[in-house]
């Protein structure tokens, strides 16, 4: 079932006004400068924020419709949401965290093997590394068998090596779970590696030119520097 989004929301500095769709089995990567409304957009998809106007549907299911004033609460949307920073439950160990909302606990074992954290099941979140915590967060989101997967800069706080291996695992996940995946990042390499479609979001709108501008025109921009640095690091490892 494909996810169709067309929403408007007034923020303090600009208005989010965006329409896009994402098919099952494909990754739409939202990229753009910080503070451009990407996180708010993902939160609206999860039901944590409410658009002012618009419509969000998954197949025939209407999640939000301002015309009929219909909004399904987050708990009924069946989304898997991996937050920007670690939101595992500190009182539970990794296995219990991943099994928190699992439809079948057997799946959790399998996911832990795929993400190579099966040796850490009994550890509490504060006892493992940031990368391992985020792997567990992805397992937690997938164990629920979501119908849409939302990832909001899930690996941005991690080191280069962890990021690279998690990227590859994301590709496997895409093949395995046939659901729409929305992936937010401001790392251009990550976007190019993962995306079936790139959605450049600037000040709440899709900007087709943004992605070309910093790479092609402005010399020595942050993106270029980062891209160059990453190539060097890739050689080093």
């Amino acid at each position, binding site marked *: 079932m494909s996810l169709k989004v067309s929403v408007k929301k007034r923020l303090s500095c600009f208005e989010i006004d965006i329409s896009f769709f994402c098919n099952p089995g494909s990754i739409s990567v939202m990229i753009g400068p910080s503070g451009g409304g990407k996180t708010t957009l993902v939160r609206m998809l*999860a*039901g*944590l924020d409410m658009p002012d106007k618009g419509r969000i549907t998954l197949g025939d299911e209407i999640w939000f419709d301002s015309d009929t004033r219909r909004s399904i*609460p*987050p*708990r*009924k*949307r*069946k*989304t898997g*949401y991996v*937050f920007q920073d670690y*939101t595992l*439950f*500190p*009182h539970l160990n990794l296995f219990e965290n991943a099994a*928190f*909302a699992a439809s079948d606990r057997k799946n959790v074992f399998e996911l832990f093997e795929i993400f190579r954290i099966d040796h850490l099941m009994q550890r509490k979140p504060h006892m493992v590394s940031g990368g391992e915590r985020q792997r567990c967060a992805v397992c*937690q989101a997938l164990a*629920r068998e979501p119908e849409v997967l939302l990832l909001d800069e899930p690996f941005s706080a991690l080191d280069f090596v962890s990021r690279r291996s998690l990227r590859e695992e994301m590709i496997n996940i895409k093949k395995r779970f046939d659901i729409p995946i929305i992936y937010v990042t401001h790392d251009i390499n990550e976007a190019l590696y993962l995306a079936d479609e790139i959605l450049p979001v600037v000040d709440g709108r899709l900007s087709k030119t943004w992605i070309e501008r910093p790479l092609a025109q402005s010399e020595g921009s942050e993106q270029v520097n980062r891209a160059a640095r990453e190539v060097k690091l890739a050689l080093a490892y």
Partner: protein
Amino acid sequence: MDFTPFFVSLKLALTVTIILIIIGAPIAYILAFFRFRGKSLVESLVYLPAALPPTVIGFYLIVVMGPGGALGETYETFTGSSLLFSFAGITLATAVYSIPFAVQPMKAAFLKLDRRLIESASVLGLGGWEIFFRVVLPNCLSGILAAAVLVFLHAMGAFGVIVMVGGSIPGVTKVASIAIYEAVETMNYRGAALMSLAFLPVSFLFLFLVNKLNEER
């Protein structure tokens, strides 16, 4: 020396603690997580007993719990006995007197909880009650424990409200602090010293337990 008053105090403090944790947790939860009209009014009302002299609280409670008061009358029609000068009466009075000490630490603990955990739980499909019992409660245990200890110790030492509402009926409403006061009044210093001494291990043990639990976390 008769230690009955000390056991009355213990019984009172335990009862009040259990009641206040059960009543105080939802109040603290609402104050911490919800915004509504008149919230500061409700909050000030909940904390008012901490800002009033115990005798003033006691006086108002006599008015409400007395034979002419709404509460006193209702109680009498159901049980046939007076609410004043009974154990139920001093339990209620001590609960009113101690409620700020239950709500405040629990509210602080709820506020400290990372809101994103609640959002994460709701995205994972949990409803309000499930979130409270599976996420909020286990992560706020130390705050709830702190509230319980504060209420317990506060209720153990209550004097003013109990004198006003319960008087000093041996075995029923004569608590340890009243017994100490009476012992001193009758120049029974030995009795007062023994009863006072009985407080030390109990209070110390409780604080020790709390510190130990906090250390292990």
